[in-house]
């Protein structure tokens, strides 16, 4: 019998702890598939961030160093400068990257650090129990915006991809989603390009993934996936913002 589906070598053979309907597992798998595709597992150094994604180091069969909350881009800068021949990636949520780690990501991008940043945007602080994130949508109810996010007092959901696109130091910036097979296939293509930007020594690459968090959105997995399509994609448009020509 022909085997048509198997676990990527870059993933350890243990079950994910993620909630049902969470997209982290899919995004982990995509990253692992790209590591396998380019034969990078033995050269990879991952930088784990703080949040639901911290357990990355249990799932990836690669060297991983843990960064303090928001500091993954700075840690990755140190790793990559000291070990330029290794493949270095960070994997950060929106609380981590777009709130407490804003300075680190902007300056790492602006210096053109040759790292690959995987940014998972699910519009909430997931691990801490669903508080407002900088990416929380207008009117979205969270545990710290019980009456919905009020743009007057909380400001606007931040568009990190668009922000980083403007920096002359960034080479590749794209936004993807994994809410349906079509978007998932596109996402993998973008991720591959992001990997190549680093392996070719071209510069800084960044892929934002829109992700569902059914638990904190208080939705079923199906509803959550629909929300990505109906609410998130119109505000956070998908596609390549910069560096897609090759």
């Amino acid at each position, binding site marked *: 019998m022909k085997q048509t589906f198997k676990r990527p070598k870059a993933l350890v053979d243990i079950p994910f702890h993620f909630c049902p309907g969470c997209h982290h597992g899919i995004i982990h798998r995509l990253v692992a598939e790209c590591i396998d595709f380019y034969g990078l597992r033995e*050269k990879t150094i991952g930088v784990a961030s703080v949040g639901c994604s911290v357990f990355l180091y249990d799932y990836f069969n690669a*060297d*991983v160093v843990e960064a303090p909350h928001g*500091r993954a881009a700075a*840690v990755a800068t*140190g790793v990559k400068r*000291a*070990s330029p021949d290794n493949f270095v990636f960070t994997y950060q949520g929106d609380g981590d990257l777009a709130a407490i780690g804003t300075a680190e990501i902007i300056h790492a991008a602006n210096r053109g650090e040759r790292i690959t940043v995987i940014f998972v945007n699910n519009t909430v602080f997931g691990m801490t129990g669903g508080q407002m994130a900088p990416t929380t949508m207008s009117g979205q109810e969270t545990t710290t915006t019980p009456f919905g996010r009020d743009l007057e007092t909380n400001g606007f959901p931040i568009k990190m991809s668009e922000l980083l696109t403007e920096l002359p130091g960034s080479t590749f910036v794209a936004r993807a989603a994994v809410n349906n097979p079509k978007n998932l296939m596109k996402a993998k293509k973008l991720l591959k390009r992001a990997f190549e930007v680093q392996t070719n020594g071209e510069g800084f690459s960044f892929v934002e993934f829109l992700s569902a968090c059914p638990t904190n959105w208080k939705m079923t997995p199906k509803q959550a996936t629909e929300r990505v399509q109906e609410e998130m994609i119109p505000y956070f448009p998908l596609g390549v913002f910069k560096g897609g020509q090759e």
Partner: protein
Amino acid sequence: MAEAEFIKGNEAIAMGAIEAGCRFYFGYPITPQNDIPEYMSRHLTDVDGTFIQAESEIASINMLLGASSTGARAMTSSSSPGISLKQEGISYMCGSQIPGVIVNMSRSGPGLGGIDPSQGDYFQATRGGGHGDYRTIVLAPHSVQENYDLTMKAFDLADKYRNPVVILGDALLGQMKEPIRRRKYRKKEFPKDWAMTGAKGRKKRLLKSLYLSEGELTDHNWMLNKKYQSMKREIMFETQFMEGAKLVVVAFGSVARILKSTVQMARDRGMKVGLFRPITLFPFPSAALDKISHSIKNFMAVELNTGQMLEDLKLSVGHKKNQVDFYGRPPGSIPSPDELFHEIKKIYKKRIG
């Protein structure tokens, strides 16, 4: 022997670091330590090293964490307010057992304070400084030569213990110029079987500080504690005029340097005063002080703060059975040898007569 060179204190630190194999420096400008990043930005390129002026002190310490995680020798430097910002990263480095050298050419606080020499960061340096139950080795030079020598040593100690090492100086030690003699650094090799290099032909490695399973973090903390206890074998101190001393003045860093003149003045006038200078502030030379306290009963701590090392001195000598006095000078001015002599004389008269 090498010829003496006339060098600024901050530059001696930078020179010592490069000679000890430091190839990565990350920093952010703050007075009075700017000569360190400036020297590094110019000279690290000569040895194919990397200098990054980071966006913040926080980014600097995390870049250090990242570079050191690969097994490379790396350093950051700053001054008091900047060191406060680095504490989160230092805590993570201790938890994940990642080495690194952190220089604090401290200035005065609290807050923005001023740029005068101060020893107000003693507690922060010796008690861990950030969150969690951890310690860093703290080295306190008192001369430009020691800035150079102890920086070299700091890299060895960091690698040996897989732990951050803090060099605690101040504006005086950073800004003054003195003749120093360079020496050939002999690199000690320490196993780096924990470093991030890519899992080629071996199992994957993790450097982390998060332990959630039952009992795991307890074990981790006891293991770290055992390591901190083992650092006692690195204790360094200097004594002067201890024969027949009736009063021992205890001081570190810049003020200890000034006191060397003061204690000489006291001896010239027939006062039996000795000087004890801790060089490692953590671990503190408690056993040596305890031993001295069995024959000498009078101690006096002198610090450029309102009394911090004083507590370690009291714990070391058994405050109840021995007499511990204190003279503190909060930041704003540097005491002269004469002024300190006047203060010591008062205590000497009170205790010895």
